[in-house]
């Protein structure tokens, strides 16, 4: 159907549908296509971003593996609408099944004359190539992705020029993610108005989220944009298991922010704009639910260790800043943090967020900034009181022997690998917490359950 339409009209339908980039940026897809269409360069490209790198996220994978033809169709329409004849799907090599099925789908589409030269006699030709990533998270960033396809080091470059002007091989490029392309066929088939029936103003359609963590029902969910967090977590997700309290939800992958249990956050309709206003983001749609037993400092440390490892090392704030933030978070979770460290942590996070070159760096601070904002008390407990309220940070644990329960059997002292426990037989034993490495071996060894972590 699309092949009988005018390219400009197709772009207009996508504009009217209000479809926004599902990769996380939320840039209006139709606007992007229009911009590429208006570029005078005769060579243009369509690139599909399938480098889904967020831990625990597999929305794009499910589409590529489950319905690869939808992506191919979306790309084909995009190529026709913008004047491109070559398309690339950049898939991470860790998705061999997706690669396999995409290859098969491309082959099938070619056999049916839906790809290749003079598609269905329209005079329009379009080919799709698959390019495999080599495991770098940063290659999900647009300019790093195109550099990677070109065979260059996967490092983001400065913008402007934007990808729509100079993208792949320096040519105008439509770069959308898997889920965005997968939305295109329905929009063209049913029209913009039908599509807009789903979702809310400025955020139309549906979005797939990966719901994980301390929630009863985990897995992929597709909900209309604008659904509230409360509905997602408590209705669809079925709430928190084992009757525990909900503590926070981390949205948007490793560089998303943590939101808390209050009316403002939980009644927040899920949209690109609303989440950004509270320091989180939709990202590619990762959603990690955390219960009361979660240490938020440890959460920040975990995500920072991921982004720090995945920083490409190009710009100074991200290269050096993520490492230093991680160091401080490690210091705090090990029980050696100070109040000055909290100020310094904020200072680095603020600098990195505002000065980093690409999206990875600009958002790398989100887990730190959002936890500092909503869980400052927990940080204070770690550095001032030297306590981890959730009892997660081993470095802050204190192990004591209940003298009323200890029978003085010496089993603990014999088990301790560092000789931190001493005492006389048949008298209560004591632990030297300066020597103790919090391994917990004594707790397991004690036949009288006299040893506890507090």
């Amino acid at each position: 159907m699309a092949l009988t339409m005018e390219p400009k009209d197709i772009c207009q339908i996508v504009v009217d549908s209000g479809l926004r980039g599902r990769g996380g940026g939320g840039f209006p897809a139709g606007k992007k296509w229009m911009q590429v269409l208006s570029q005078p360069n005769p060579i243009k490209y369509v690139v599909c971003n399938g480098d889904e790198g967020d831990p625990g996220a597999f929305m794009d994978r499910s589409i590529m593996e489950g319905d690869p033809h939808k992506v191919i169709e979306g790309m084909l329409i995009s190529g026709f609408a913008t004047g491109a004849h070559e398309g690339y799907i950049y898939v991470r090599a860790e998705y061999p099944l997706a690669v396999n099925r995409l290859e098969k789908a491309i082959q099938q589409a070619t056999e049916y004359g839906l790809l290749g030269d003079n598609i269905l006699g329209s005079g329009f030709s379009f080919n799709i190539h698959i390019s495999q990533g080599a495991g770098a998270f940063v290659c999900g960033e647009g300019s790093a992705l195109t550099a990677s396809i070109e065979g260059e080091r996967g490092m983001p470059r400065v913008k402007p020029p934007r990808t729509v002007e100079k993208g792949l091989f320096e040519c105008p490029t439509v770069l959308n993610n898997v889920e965005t392309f997968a939305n295109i066929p329905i929009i063209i088939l049913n029209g913009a108005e039908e599509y807009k029936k789903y979702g809310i103003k400025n955020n139309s359609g549906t979005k797939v989220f990966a719901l994980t963590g301390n929630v009863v029902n985990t897995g992929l969910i597709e909900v209309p944009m604008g659904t509230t967090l409360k509905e997602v977590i408590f209705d669809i997700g079925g709430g928190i298991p084992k009757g525990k309290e909900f503590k926070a939800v981390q949205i948007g992958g490793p560089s998303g922010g943590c939101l808390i249990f209050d009316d403002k956050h939980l009644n927040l309709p899920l949209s690109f704009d609303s989440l950004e206003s509270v320091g989180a983001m939709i990202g590619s749609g990762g959603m990690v639910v955390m219960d009361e037993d979660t240490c938020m400092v440890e959460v920040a440390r975990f995500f920072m260790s991921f982004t720090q490892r995945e920083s490409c090392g190009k710009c100074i704030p991200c290269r050096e800043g993520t490492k230093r933030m991680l160091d401080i978070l490690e210091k705090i979770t090990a029980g050696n943090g100070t109040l000055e460290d909290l100020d310094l942590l904020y200072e680095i996070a603020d600098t990195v967020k505002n000065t980093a070159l690409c999206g990875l760096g600009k958002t790398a601070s989100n887990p730190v900034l959002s936890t500092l904002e909503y869980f400052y008390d927990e940080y204070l407990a770690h550095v001032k009181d030297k306590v981890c309220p959730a009892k997660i940070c081993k470095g802050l644990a204190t192990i004591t022997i209940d003298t009323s329960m200890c029978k003085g059997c010496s089993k603990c002292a014999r088990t301790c690998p560092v000789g931190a426990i001493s005492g006389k037989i048949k008298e209560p034993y004591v632990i030297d917490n300066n020597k103790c490495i919090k391994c917990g071996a004594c707790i397991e060894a004690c036949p009288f359950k006299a040893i506890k972590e507090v």
Partner: protein
Amino acid sequence: MGGTMIIDGRKVKYTNQKNILSVIRDAGIDLPTFCYHSELSIYGACRMCTVETSTGKIIATCSEVPRDGMEIYTNSPRIRKYRKMILELLLSNHDRDCTVCERTGKCQLQKLAKRYGINRIRFNQLIEEQEVDNSSPSIIRNPNKCIKCGDCVMVCDEIQGVGALGFTHRGTEVQIKPAFNKKLSETNCVNCGQCRIVCPTAAITIRNETQKVWDAIYDKNTRVIAQIAPAVRVALGEEFGMKPGEVTIGKIASILRKIGVDEVYDTALSADLTVMEESNEFLERFSNNENLPLFTSCCPAWVKFAENKYPELIKNISTCKSPQQMFGAVAREYYNKKDKEDGQKTFIVSIMPCTAKKAEAARPEFTHDGVREVDVVLTTQELAIMIKEIGINFQDVEEESLDMPFGIASGAGIIFGTTGGVTEAVLRRLLKDKFGKDDCEIIFNSVRGLDAVKEASVEVDGKVINIAVVHGLKDADSLIKQIKKGEKHYDLVEVMACKGGCIAGGGQPVPRIITKETRALRAAGLYNIDKTKLIKSSDENYIIKNIYEDILKDNNHILHVK
């Protein structure tokens, strides 16, 4: 496409500046950068040039085009805080042994740290000490001082087309080094030293060989003679507060004598010899129509580049030794006799604007019976180090003249130091009968200046000679590709590896901001010397005649590489 921006509350007009950074700098605000060089592509990694807009957005000015009515703040509280933090982060992972660092006082990192008042570093040093690469005869690479700004990678790739350096690893572990962990000497590095010019710290420095010269000077049985390349005299002054292009040859002669050098000579004289030999060689090839185009051979970085990439072109490269080596060959011949008479040993030092000259002098074809034609090559930068060490007040030094018999050069020999100079020098000889006429000036002007490729056609004895002049190896590479494809036809091609020629060599003082203007000023310095010279053409230099008659006799082959 001009307009008006509001910078720090002040209206600033802009015209065709390609980014906001240039507008800000043209407005007299020295916005800091590490990774920005106007002639390289925009890398955008240091984030020092960020400013705050009136809406509170933080933008990097190197990559943003100016827009009419845009309002920005270059020193807002946030910007100052971020800049300080970036500097602190950089310093925290930097080898901070400033007191014994060669770049101290001239290091961009040190300068900015001082400018922004960084007086403490709240982070411990994490980086493991890495091995210093001192395999190259020309430059030393110290990764411990590298801030990964990428300037060297870009200049090597984008301007020189060599690509000897690249990035490895990622995150905090990112490193800049040759591929496959090779040493620089094992790569296709041509020793041009342009990486050292753009490096903001001491991660890439010149191999310092001043001690060898001191040793020779202090040895009573050694006669130390020095040759000074043309380009040195128009740049050395920059190390002592003078402007680019100010001529300091008289001071150099005087200072070298104070340092203890026995005789001070001019490489421009052996450039005259090169003109004689190369024009003869050209005319012979031209009339026989063999191995054309003739490529010049004075630039060792270019010769190495050709050997690496176009070995099939070696037969097209002139067999003439470079002026440095011609000087060495002739001086050895001259002093061998003297050495035998007075029992002294002659030690030949050349002062060059070039790091590749160090590698050239060390090539096996320039060593005979274990004796090098040139014993040590010092760069302009190293000469400055020696001058500072002995504590001479450069400004007050009286000018002296050079020594004889190798102290007089023609204007043609002098302009060798800039792009187009070799060609013009050869043309002055070939077009001798027309010299001084208007059309001749037009031809000379067409090979002057800083355009990437300059072309000229001249008629000699009724035949048209097509000439090209190119500088910067990347541009040379594209020209060679065009020649090989048959798209371009030349008889003579002058290649200088560095943009601008020797005046912008890797051994020159590092300008505060590397721009075309610095090169143009240095080149103008050479043309100014040329103007004052009574002898304009190499063949009119009577010293040359003496050299041919007294020293070379029938020994011309020592001026060529076989």
